[in-house]
């Protein structure tokens, strides 16, 4: 069963009166339980695709199905609720709530997914990420790698079917990068989540069994030079 199905997906903007196509993907899918890495240079539309799959951005044309539900047929509030329940999102720049501790950041993730804020489960997830000693620390008191692990724990806390990771190692050095990606993949496997990760770093991509070059997938940029 496909966890993500894209069909005739198009996203474009108008720039100085001229249409600028960002995404043009005729068909693509990710199967349930898969761990897929999309790679491509910066500015080629990888993040935009994740936004569309997460329901944060409505495409101009085409259909997007996630977990068998057609996101493009949903209203914004319904998409928000769907995302809250089924999709975990990890941003490149962590995007932790700065005024909340590591534990509270995870609990907030649970709150908006309409789950009971299970303190024990949140603590266990952070322990899984090697952060037992950081529960009550604020993001500013943690290293960048630790912050990203908190973000992973928060994404997993809602027990999603799909994790979308947008350049999750973009701000990390190579040593921490491989550690974070390994943690993310292991956690997704353990919790039964599918994983779609986008990155422009070859080291990150190389550990994935399924690696998809985004420039081939996205016809909008096929054959065009994009700044890295």
């Amino acid at each position, binding site marked *: 069963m496909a966890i993500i199905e894209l069909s005739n997906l198009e996203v474009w903007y108008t720039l100085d009166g001229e249409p600028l196509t960002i995404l043009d993907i005729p068909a693509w899918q990710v199967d349930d339980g898969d761990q897929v890495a999309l790679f491509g240079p910066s500015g080629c539309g990888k993040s935009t695709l994740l936004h569309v799959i997460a329901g944060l951005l409505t495409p101009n044309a085409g259909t997007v199905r996630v977990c068998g539900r057609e996101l493009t047929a949903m209203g*914004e*509030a319904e998409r*928000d*609720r769907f995302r809250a329940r089924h999709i975990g999102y990890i*941003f*490149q720049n962590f*995007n932790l*709530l700065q*005024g909340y501790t590591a534990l509270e950041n995870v609990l907030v993730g649970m709150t908006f997914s309409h789950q009971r804020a299970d303190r024990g489960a949140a603590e266990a997830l952070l322990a899984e990420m090697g952060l037992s000693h950081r529960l009550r620390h604020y993001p500013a008191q943690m290293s960048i790698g630790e912050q990203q692990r908190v973000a992973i724990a928060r994404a997993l806390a809602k027990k999603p079917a799909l994790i979308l990771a947008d350049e999750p190692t973009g701000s990390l050095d190579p040593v921490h990068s491989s550690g974070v990606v390994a943690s993310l993949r292991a956690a997704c496997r353990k919790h039964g989540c599918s994983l779609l990760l986008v990155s422009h770093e070859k080291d990150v991509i190389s550990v994935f069994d399924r690696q998809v070059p985004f420039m081939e997938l996205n016809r909008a940029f096929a054959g065009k030079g994009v700044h890295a």
Partner: protein
Amino acid sequence: MSLWRIILKSLRQHWLSTGMAVFSIGLGVALLVSVVSLREQAHRNFTEVGLGVDAVLGPKGSPLQIVLNAVYHLEEMPGKIKWTYYQKVLKDPLVVEGIPFCTGHSYAGFRVNAIDGRFLTDFEYLPDKHFSFRPEDGGQGRPFEGRDEAVAGWEVAKELGLRIGNSFNPVCGVKAGDPVHINDNIRFVGILGRTGTPHDRAIYIPLTTFYALEGHGTDVARMAVDEEHREISGAYLKIRRLPGGALNPGIMDLKYNVNQSPEAQIVVPNEVLPSLFSIIGWVDNTLLAIALLVTLLSALFLLVALLAALRERRRDLALMRSLGATRRTVFGLVLSESVVMAMLGGILGLVLGHAIVAVGAHFIRVETGLRFSEMYLSSADVLLLPAIVVLGLVVGLVPAIQAYRTGVLKNLVPVS
């Protein structure tokens, strides 16, 4: 983590602006609560207390001055009336009872009124309420009987620490420095139970004692025995009532006839007291307007604080939206914060307002004898919480709409 905890967390995060906004609302509400409470209690004091006295027969002069002196033990009586004229008025079929008195003496800052003994036994200080000497009512002893006996009001006894058997020398006058009747030693034989009226703040001696005090001269002493010559400050009049309890409208004729004479006038406290409020009304309304203005300004302060906090929080709200919070949820969060801040301010204002009333009540009681209570629930108290919720909702609406419009992608992520 519940949404309430997220709201409280946000308030804590912006504790300075939250605290300032709460304090400013508290200040506005405190002013409002105290002004309305003092205003209502003043009205109540000056209208309900007057209920015990249907009418006062007094000398020519300011009717308000007569009521303040006769009923509230304030001011001074503008003159005297003839005993014979009082007797004449008493014979009117509308007058059920009269209690004559002479004012003008004092002791330790409290008025000493010479009054007919029936005041202590028959007079109704409020409808159907008579003075009590029973210990369970806070009273002691008995009514005066002899020439050199006195009864103290509850407040007087409490403030001066009086006991039965204590004695005093009355001052001939009500101002500091007035002469003392040093040869007239009057003994307290009773303390009145608490009435909650200005009568608690006076000392009562027999009417005839007034004329017999040494130093008043032979002319006044003669008044004790010569009724033709006798004068009094005034008299409380009890007027015949209609079956439903309303004053007999014939009082208007009686009042007209008495007021036409050069001898005296009849003053109905409940007619005169509203004029007091028309005199002080502008002060009253100005204070209320200031309180309302301060509350409105504090509402603006709340709005500014919320907007400033929102500017800092756009990223947080966008992040919450990315985690699945709907636009309505973030709208509700910001609106709830506004209501919570307004309510905290309201509660603070309520406490502060009653504290102001407590302090004010102390000074008013010392100065005038009128009793105000910090525990009095005014219309401001009753309307406060719903009004403050509405204020919070109205003020929070603009920031909440801005939060509702917060775009996730615009505030969160770089596009790659």
